[in-house]
Structures are given as C-alpha cells and as structure tokens.
C-alpha cells in the first residue's frame, strides 16, 4: 500500500516545486535575475554572438582559408601549445606556492602574498617592458630570450602565475588538519596523505585555476608583444595575428581566429570541469 502511494506523492510534490520555480519568483529575486541576465548579455553574450556573426559573413570557405593559412595556423599552434605547457607548469608551481603560503611561516610571507598578485595588477604592457628589460638583449642577468618561443612561454608564465595560487590557497587554508592527522594515525605516510587526502580536496580548485590560467594565456597580448618579436611562423601568437588582420581591414578573418580561440577555451574549460566532476564522483 505504502509503496504504491509514495511515488505519486513524490511526483506531485515534484510538480509543485517545478511550477513554483516557473512563476513563484519573489519580486526581489525576479529583479536580481533580470539584472544578472542583462548584465551578462551586454558584457558577454552579445559581443560573443557578434564575433560569431562576423565570422559567418565570410562564409565557410573564407573561414577555412583563414585557418589553413600557414602563418595563422602556426600562430594558433604556438599559442595553444604554449598555453597548455604554461598551465601544466602552473598546476605544479601554483599548488606548491599556495602550500608554502598557507602551511609555512617565514620572514617576508606577507610581502610574498602581495607580490603574487602583481601580475594581476600590472598593466600587461608594463609587464612586457619589465620582461624586455630583464630578459631582453640588454639583460642584467645575462638571460636573453628575445625573439624566441621562450619569450612567449615566459610572458604567459608571468601573467598566469596568480591563478592557481589564488584558487588553491583558500581551499588549502580551510582544510582540516584533523583529517591529515586521522590519516597519519591510520598509518598513512606524508606522501600518501598528500596523494590520497589533500590532493583530492584541492583538485577542484586546481582545475578551476588551470582553466583560468589557460584562458588567460591563450588571449595574452601586451606582455609578450615586446619580447617575442612577433616573428611570423616562429613567435607570433594568435592575438597578434588577429590585430594584424584587423589593421588590414580583414575583420572576417580576425573574427574567424577569435572563434577558434573561443572554441578552444570552451573546450579546455569544459574538459577540466568534466575531469573534476569525474574525480569528485569516483570517491
């Protein structure tokens, strides 16, 4: 008897909730939702659609011609590989720096906390100048990476440094020490505790930081434009390529490259999200 009644009751309750969700917004949450949607549309959705529309004006063949252009293809390849490499480095180094900032106490920790954010705060062209004077032809430390792919890598590293650090840091700070102690008293060594207890807890934050870091790197312009030399086929990145197309009045091609960047960014972010969900579910 109970079994036959229970599902129908549950279904009714479910329906009620759903109908409530469609019409039952209070005035304040209705306004909130409206503002959020307008804000998001004006700032993100409409410009993104404009890029897609612009891309489509040239038609499929123009789109394909742009992407298969040797110089453009090289730029896309360079940007994506360097961005992936940098993201990989950031995942390791960012987690390590976050660890040091949260777990260790040392002289100058506060200063380091502030310095980490400088790549955020610095206008990217200023970052470019700093990198040029430090690692350019007149380098005071004797490292000259100007006009090489290393310059692109360095510039990406510089601007994406804070992302993983800043996403992992608060999660690590919130992590209960109890949990590690519990693992230790159950016989787990330090490396095992890190791998089986700490890392799973940090994993979502690391993924989020990696996604941000990748998206930032793939769109970088200011910080590398001075040091990399923008040599076609060698050190030219996509954002420089887009600017060149725009300067030549070829907006459809510029939009085509932008669309590819958009697609790749989306792909990486979604992939990271899927991986993170999968790890979270595995238990």
């Amino acid at each position: 008897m109970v079994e036959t009644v229970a599902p129908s009751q549950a279904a009714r309750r479910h329906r009620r909730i759903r109908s409530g969700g469609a019409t039952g917004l209070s005035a304040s949450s209705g306004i909130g939702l409206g503002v959020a949607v307008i804000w998001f549309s004006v700032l993100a959705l409409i410009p993104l659609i404009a890029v897609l529309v612009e891309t489509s004006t040239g038609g499929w063949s123009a789109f394909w011609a742009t992407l298969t252009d040797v110089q453009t293809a090289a730029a896309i390849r360079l940007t994506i590989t360097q961005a992936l490499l940098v993201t990989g480095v950031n995942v390791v180094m960012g987690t390590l720096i976050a660890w040091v900032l949260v777990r260790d106490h040392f002289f100058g920790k506060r200063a380091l906390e502030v310095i980490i954010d400088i790549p955020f705060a610095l206008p990217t062209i200023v970052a470019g100048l700093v990198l040029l004077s430090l690692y350019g032809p007149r380098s005071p430390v004797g490292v000259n990476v100007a006009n090489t792919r290393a310059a692109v890598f360095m510039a990406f590293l510089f601007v994406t440094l804070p992302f993983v650090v800043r996403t992992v840091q608060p999660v690590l700070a919130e992590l209960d020490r109890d949990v590690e102690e519990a693992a230790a008293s159950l016989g787990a060594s330090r490396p095992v505790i890190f791998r089986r207890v700490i890392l799973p807890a940090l994993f979502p934050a690391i993924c989020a930081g990696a996604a941000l870091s990748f998206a930032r790197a793939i769109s970088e312009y200011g910080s590398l434009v001075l040091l990399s030399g923008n040599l076609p086929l060698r050190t030219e990145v996509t954002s420089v390529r887009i600017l060149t197309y725009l300067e030549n009045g070829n907006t459809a091609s510029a939009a085509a490259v932008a669309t590819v960047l958009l697609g790749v960014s989306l792909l990486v972010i979604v992939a990271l999200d899927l991986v993170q969900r999968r790890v979270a579910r595995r238990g």
Partner: protein
Amino acid sequence: MSIEVTGVGKRFGDFVALDDVSVSIPTGQLTALLGPSGGGKSTLLRIIAGLEDADTGRIEIEGRDATDLSPQKRNVGFVFQHYAAFKHLSVARNVAFGLEIRKRPKDEIKARVHELLELVHLEQFADRRPGQLSGGQRQRMALARALAVKPTVLLLDEPFGALDAKVRKELRDWLRRLHDEIPVTTVFVTHDQEEALEVADEIVVINEGRIEQVGTPDQLYDEPANDFVMSFLGPVTSLGGVSVRPHDLEISTEDPGGGVAGTVVRSVRVGFEVRLEVRTSTESVQAVLTRTEARGLGVVDGTTVWLRPMLGAPTVRPTGLLVPAV
C-alpha cells in the same frame, strides 16, 4: 599497564599545557581524562597518539617505548571531536582507509569493512558520502575507521562534543556497550563530569596541566582528593569553612548538637527537590533536600535551622586536605 606516561611536560610558548604528568592507564578499560577546557587533557591524548611531541618525559604503549615513534607506527586509533572524515570517500572507503594503506587483500578489506559497519549500525550507508550522514552517524563511522586497523589503544578526543544533548546521551550508552563487546583499551577526553562518571571505569582528573586525582567514579565522588576535584564533579557549598555537597547536609529545626545555626533566606522548589539558602553568622550556605523532607520540617523563609554534614559525607577543606567524615 597499557599506557605508561612518565614525567611528560609540554609548553606552547609561555603557556604550560602539561607540567610533569605521570599516569598509568590500565589495559582493557575505559578511562576518562576529565577536566576543564584548556587544562591539558587533549594535549596529553595527542601526545599519547604521537600527534604532538612532548618536551620532556616518556610514553610507553603496551610495554613498548613509543616516545620517539611517529603516529603512523604507534598503532593507535584516534577519533576527533569534529569527525575528521575523508569527505571525498564513501563511508565504506573511509573505514577501509587504514587497511588499504596496509595493502591488505581486497577480500579481507571487504569483509572487515562489512563487519565494522555492522558493528556501528551503518551497513545501509556504506556507499554514502560522510556529508550525507548526521553528526552521530559520522562519529560512529570515525570510530569504525579507527577500529578497522585493530589498534592497541583507542583514543577519543571529546568524541561527543559536537553533538546535541540527545544524540550525545545515546552515543555515550552505545560506546559503553561497544566497549563491553570489544574491550580494547580506550581513553577518552571530556569536560563533562556526568559523561565521565557514567561511562568510564577509571577517571583521571586533569587541571592546569597537572593530574589532580586518579580513581574510579565512586572513589572520585566519595573521596575527592581536594576542593577542585570535589567542585568539578558536582555541586559544592561551604559550611564552617569546609566544602560539602548541598545534598549531604542534614537540616533540623532543633539543635542536634554540633550543628551550625542559620536562617532560611530563600527556598526554591525545582521539581522533586527544594533548594535552600541558609544565612549563618559567617556565611551563606546552599542546601538541597527532597520535597517530602522539606514538608516534614516545615521550612519556609525565615525559619531558623541547624545544619551539619551527614554521617560519612565527603567534606574537604579548601586547603586541599580531606577531612575525616563527622
């Protein structure tokens, strides 16, 4: 003796958490470390587990010197106040953790986890996440996890501290029954004297980094070593400069000899008991009697009464010396 603590001292900066503490904890019993917050009882438990290093002194577990052993090698089970669950693992995997670390065969782990989940009545929650359990269930899971590796001693740090009163009471009874079933040497920290009196075989009272008294619940209640132990274990009032429990006072309306005279200035009835405040020439004394006794005596505000400790009642001079019963 299962755990032998010798001359253990521990400081945190200027704060002395433990001051030359020595105590023996008997095998197979349920021992409570009882004392006020910040008294050093949790620190002592953590030192026994190896989660904290003692500045001085030695720890022996089952005859083996454990002073310099890492927590991983002490084979102790530890249960934390806030569960310390592995949130990303299912309940079964939480319990299996210690066995997986030890690389036990899969079948053995499965059987042992099943057996433990049954023991703590969580078998139907094996695949849930700790986040989906109530506080009491999470603490039972933590207990199963600690027991999984068959520890030589089980240490519980305020295990019921985060739970509400009703669940607390249930878990307390359950822990006592569990201990009777699996008599592993167990030490638990609590600041709740009722919890200690009810559950423990033996109580170690710790205050300000020192041990005040060790004994069975009855010993501590009936023969408190000093004023602190007496007042920590139950209500205390002062009569003629001697500490005595309010319900151990004999009240009469005529001088029985050896009594102290006073006037009832306030009487409050709470359920079955009547609480009196009696003003003597030197002090204000609290006394408790049953409703029937109060009726029989006919005490009301303003009545003159004589007070004296009952025969055999524990009394303590505030200097710390036990006064022989009257």
